[in-house]
């Protein structure tokens, strides 16, 4: 690995393009301009230069793919155009339903109101445990797909977690050596998925969020980890409001206790419980909590933040889907959290969002 991934990429692409000398120089110049522009844009978003280059390269596609596409495109274009008919049917199906499966507020939204929150990779340098692909909309959030990326042997296995109503994904860091993937590698993995998923029929929605955090259930149980089960000293994406770390094992949680505790906590912050139910995901008990208040804006801006309040729950943020609605059912805020295994999806109605940056 060099300190100039773009230069390295261009060298590889040059080799692949060798047979097409006529366009070689021009293509390389254009690709370099593209990659440097993409990296510059990522840097402007706060990503460190080397990581920005790596993400830009990953998003472009492998040199072999790019070179092969040049060949295929010249010979298959007519065939592809003949496939328009099949395509439109799929597009129509997509517009009608894809991405809305399981959205608890799907009846509030329409395709024409979709506004992707972000198409940027917000944090490709995070110690990634998972990649969540979401499509946020003005009045709600849908889950076109949630992707679980599992590290460790076999390396780089992508597992698709099909659409779920609770936008939750849990990932156990399973690196055989007990290590953690380098941050840049995690970012690349995420970017590679984002780039490649469509060609494999996997969903890629309007935004991608890569969250920081890591840990193992074993570390939690053995007391080696921090409150989220992650290695001590490592940032986890999920804030822990409790001053005294509370250890919670979601695989043995008692739903009745959890319901009582959540109900009490929700009441204590002035919210009305609409529903609490539980889902079992990979052996974990995941509370799916829907609440309401006539004044979400006040709640979102409350001090201490609601995250600190819910963080005092016995379960902390160990896997919870939390939704806050207006009384008419319009969602104002959605949070899906997981700690220790690092995942999270969030949505705040844009007009209420005190911090609009992803």
């Amino acid at each position, binding site marked *: 690995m060099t300190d100039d991934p773009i230069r390295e990429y261009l060298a590889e692409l040059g080799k692949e393009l060798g047979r097409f000398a006529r*366009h070689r120089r*021009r*293509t390389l*110049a*254009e*690709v*370099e*301009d*593209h990659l*440097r*522009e*993409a990296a510059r844009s990522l840097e402007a978003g706060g990503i460190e230069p080397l990581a920005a280059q790596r993400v830009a390269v990953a*998003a*472009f*596609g492998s040199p072999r*793919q*790019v070179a092969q*596409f*040049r060949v295929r*495109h*010249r010979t298959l*274009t007519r065939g*592809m*155009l003949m*496939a*328009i*008919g099949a*395509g*439109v*049917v*799929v*597009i*129509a199906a*997509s517009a009608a339903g894809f991405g809305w499966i399981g959205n608890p507020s799907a009846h509030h939204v329409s395709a024409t109101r*979709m*506004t*992707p929150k972000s*198409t940027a990779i917000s944090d490709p340098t995070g110690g990634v445990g998972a990649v969540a692909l979401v*499509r946020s909309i003005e009045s709600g959030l849908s889950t076109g797909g949630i992707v679980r990326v599992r590290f460790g042997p076999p390396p780089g296995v992508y597992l698709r977690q099909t659409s779920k109503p609770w936008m939750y994904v849990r990932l156990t860091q399973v690196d055989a050596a007990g290590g953690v993937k380098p941050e840049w590698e995690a970012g690349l993995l995420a970017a590679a998925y*984002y*780039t*490649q998923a*469509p*060609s494999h*029929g996997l969903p*890629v*929605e*309007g*935004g991608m969020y890569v969250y920081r955090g890591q840990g193992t259930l074993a570390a939690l149980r053995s007391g080696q980890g921090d409150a989220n089960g992650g290695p001590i000293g490592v940032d986890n994406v999920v804030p822990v409001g409790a001053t005294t770390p509370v250890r919670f094992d979601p695989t043995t949680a008692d739903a009745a206790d959890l319901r009582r505790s959540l109900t009490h906590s929700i009441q204590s912050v002035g919210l009305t419980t609409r529903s609490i139910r539980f889902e079992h995901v990979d052996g974990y008990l995941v509370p799916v909590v829907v609440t309401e208040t006539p004044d979400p804006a006040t709640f979102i801006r409350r001090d201490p933040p609601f995250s600190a309040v819910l963080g005092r729950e016995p379960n902390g943020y160990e896997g919870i889907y939390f939704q806050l609605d207006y009384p008419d059912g319009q969602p104002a805020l959605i949070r899906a959290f997981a700690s220790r295994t690092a995942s999270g999806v969030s949505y705040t109605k844009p007009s209420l969002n005190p911090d609009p940056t992803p």
Partner: protein
Amino acid sequence: MRSELLKGHLDLLVLTALRSEPGHGYVVLDRLRRLSDGEFSLPEGTIYPALHRLERDGLLRSHQTQHQGRTRRVYSLTPAGKKALVGKRAEWERFTAGIARTLEAAG
């Protein structure tokens, strides 16, 4: 959206992205993302063969500029490209309308 589907419509999309003003490849992709509200997100490396082919077919023309010490190739529609865009768009609208009518009639 599946990229294979997008590739089938790449000509129309690229021509549309360049309709209002010239741009280089990165800008074309960025416009496609924005114009489609993020729906169209192609593997980035696929855009250049399409641009080159459209230029070879006379629908685009390009010129080189210098940008921060790098060579940048900027594409724009030719008169033939503008005409092709109108035709492709009308063809697309007829086609989608036909599909919609069919689906509607089938209930």
